[in-house]
């Protein structure tokens, strides 16, 4: 450890301390300070560690959450960057926090949630280190940030190219993700679903209609979600790979969990996955793949899956007087469609709040709400007491639901979070709040004036 690196770590720790004293939730600034002093700090701090990077459009935070529980169940130690702090600064800050003043990180694993566009900047100093990279999936995200869906694939590719010895864990059902399998690697492992998820599932495959290799139209043996499923190309033969960890059947849908049959590297495993919404099963499968690779046995895997507690933000429950609030974060059409599938199963009878902002982190362009299949929810949510709209683009969201044939007599626009929270509290109902990223942050800030809440990490 050079004096320069030690100094950088110290400066980073000091910045963190000052931020804490100031009561700021900021998590990126210490990283920026450290990088200024020692640009290759990550390579130095990560030198003797096992590193797991999780990237992809949807499910990064939940996947990290499950992986963390798996690693800890093994009796190993791990540190992670905070949810959402997934750019270079956030990752460096996490390393600095986990490091001693002398620049040693004593945990066995570094578990890093990595933004797709930031992946390269994060991993470029890891080089030959022991890195396992999980790519959860690739969907259209905020186009104004990434351009097109292939740009996202290429950004991930540019990151993984930095790692000649990487072990890749890829979503077998995603043709975009699977296309990364021609990268240099020291092992590729796939997870996926061997059967469709639900009856009448969304099969909007428009994120990947044509073969990424030869541009012929894909054919599908079955669909699970969006463009995910049993894809194959008749022209060039590119196709879904047989998963090492496969979901073979959902035996039972419960309220907030699913009982499933899996095949884990050849062994049949039955487990209850304590995550709400079928889409989360993909995240569980990715984590199970990692767990197997790190040496956790099947019994322990089952125990962990059955003991998961929902991570805040992705599906946070808050009691507000007699009202119970379920806060759900949405970022893009695929994620929103997954949340709709969850709501359809819930058949809400209380209130539903839709919150949409158009700040940079939400996507400046809100066109994507027309790619969300609200029409599928219309019937299932017909028994709801009211539909509330909030955020900067509340009126656009309201209009979207008008065109999805929701009952406009139950519509309420309330952009003032305080007034909205007061109203929801008075209502005393089970309430689902589906909010875009900065809308979630703003809403939680206001909500914390009513009830104590956990800290919510945010990018600076």
């Amino acid at each position, binding site marked *: 450890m050079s004096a320069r690196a030690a100094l950088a770590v110290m400066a980073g720790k000091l910045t963190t301390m000052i931020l804490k004293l100031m009561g700021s939730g900021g998590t990126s600034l210490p990283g920026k300070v450290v990088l200024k002093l020692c640009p290759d700090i990550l390579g130095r701090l990560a030198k003797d560690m096992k590193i797991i990077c999780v990237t992809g459009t949807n499910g990064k935070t939940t996947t990290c959450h499950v992986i963390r529980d798996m690693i800890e169940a093994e009796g190993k130690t791990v540190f992670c960057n905070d949810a959402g702090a997934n750019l270079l600064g956030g990752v460096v800050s996490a390393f600095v926090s986990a490091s001693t003043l002398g620049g040693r990180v004593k945990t066995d694993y570094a578990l890093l949630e990595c933004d797709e566009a930031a992946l390269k900047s994060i991993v470029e100093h890891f080089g030959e280190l022991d890195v396992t990279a999980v790519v959860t999936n690739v969907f*259209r995200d905020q*186009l*104004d940030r990434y351009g*097109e*869906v*292939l740009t996202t694939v290429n950004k991930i590719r540019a990151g993984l190219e930095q790692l000649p010895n990487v072990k890749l864990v890829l979503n077998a059902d995603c043709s975009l993700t699977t296309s990364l399998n021609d990268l240099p690697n020291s092992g590729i492992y796939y997870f996926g679903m061997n059967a469709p998820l639900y009856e009448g599932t969304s099969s909007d495959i*428009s994120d990947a*209609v*044509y073969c990424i290799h030869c*541009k012929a*139209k894909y054919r599908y043996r079955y669909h699970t979600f969006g463009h995910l499923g049993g894809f194959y190309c008749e022209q060039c033969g590119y196709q879904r790979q047989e998963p090492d960890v496969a979901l073979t059947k959902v035996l039972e849908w419960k309220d907030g969990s699913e009982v499933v049959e899996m095949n884990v590297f050849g062994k049949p495993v039955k487990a209850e996955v304590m995550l709400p919404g079928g889409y989360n099963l993909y995240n569980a499968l990715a984590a199970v793949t990692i767990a197997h690779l790190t040496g956790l046995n099947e019994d322990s895997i089952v125990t962990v899956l059955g003991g998961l507690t929902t991570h805040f933000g992705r599906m946070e429950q808050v009691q507000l007087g007699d009202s119970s609030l379920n806060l759900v974060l949405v970022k893009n059409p695929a994620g929103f469609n997954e949340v709709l599938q969850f709501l359809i199963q819930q058949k809400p009878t209380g209130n539903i709040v839709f919150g949409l902002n*158009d700040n940079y982190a939400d996507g*400046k*362009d*809100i*066109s*994507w*709400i*027309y*790619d969300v299949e609200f029409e599928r929810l219309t019937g299932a949510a017909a028994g709801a007491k009211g539909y509330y709209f909030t955020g*900067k*683009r*509340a*009126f*656009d969201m*309201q*209009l*979207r639901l*008008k*065109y999805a*044939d929701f009952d*406009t007599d139950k*519509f309420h*626009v309330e952009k003032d979070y305080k007034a909205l929270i007061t109203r929801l509290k008075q209502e005393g109902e089970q309430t689902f709040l589906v909010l875009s990223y900065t809308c979630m942050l703003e809403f939680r800030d206001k909500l914390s004036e009513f009830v104590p809440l956990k800290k919510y990490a945010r990018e600076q």
Partner: protein
Amino acid sequence: MSEKSLHICHLYYDILNLYGDNGNIRTLEKRLAWRGIGCEITRLSFGEVDRSADYDIIFIGGGQDFEQELLVKDLFAYKAEWLKNEIEKGTVILGICGGYQMLGNYYEAADGTKVEFLGGIDVHTTASDQRMIGNFVFDYRGEDGESFSVVGFENHNGKTWLGEGVKPLGKIVKGYGNNGEDGTEGARYKNVFATYSHGPLLPKNARLADELLSIAYARRYEEPLAPLEHIMEDAALEDIRRQLGA
């Protein structure tokens, strides 16, 4: 009395659907349904064309560069002649973003290479390194002579230039429009409405949606389309217009 209905063609529905383009079809369909008018939607993809069909409205959305090459090949193989004919005979056509460019003469890349497009309306597009992105507002002058604001989102590098006989669809109030230079937005030729307002243009621009429907309906039934309220549509439009200070 037989039920009245319009026939809409969603051209390249599975390729030119980059970002919420379906919102436009949905809007046309619902605003007809709320007036008690039926709507048949035909979705055409690669290799498909139905020359005998009598469409009232053809919608062409925006796409990704990845598919452009395939698209142009298919356009000339199956659809060019038919589409040009539809334009000339006055069928209502809405082309947005990539669909707008494609209706024009050609696209000229930065290195000077040209990609031939349909040549249905006299416009052409040149590459630029300027990203023209953001919410934008333009003034549209309706068939009845009354002007109103249209608010959308643009996201393009291409600069489109209008030729002879093509009028701009509107005048830029805020944003870039066709090229960020001459203050024009979109193109109007016969009943072709072409614009850079990508994705769901029509939902909150209900007056523009009704303009398209009125022309199409009058062509088919030789009678005016009944008026329909657009209160929530206007609320969304005015809210964002106010936020943009336009």
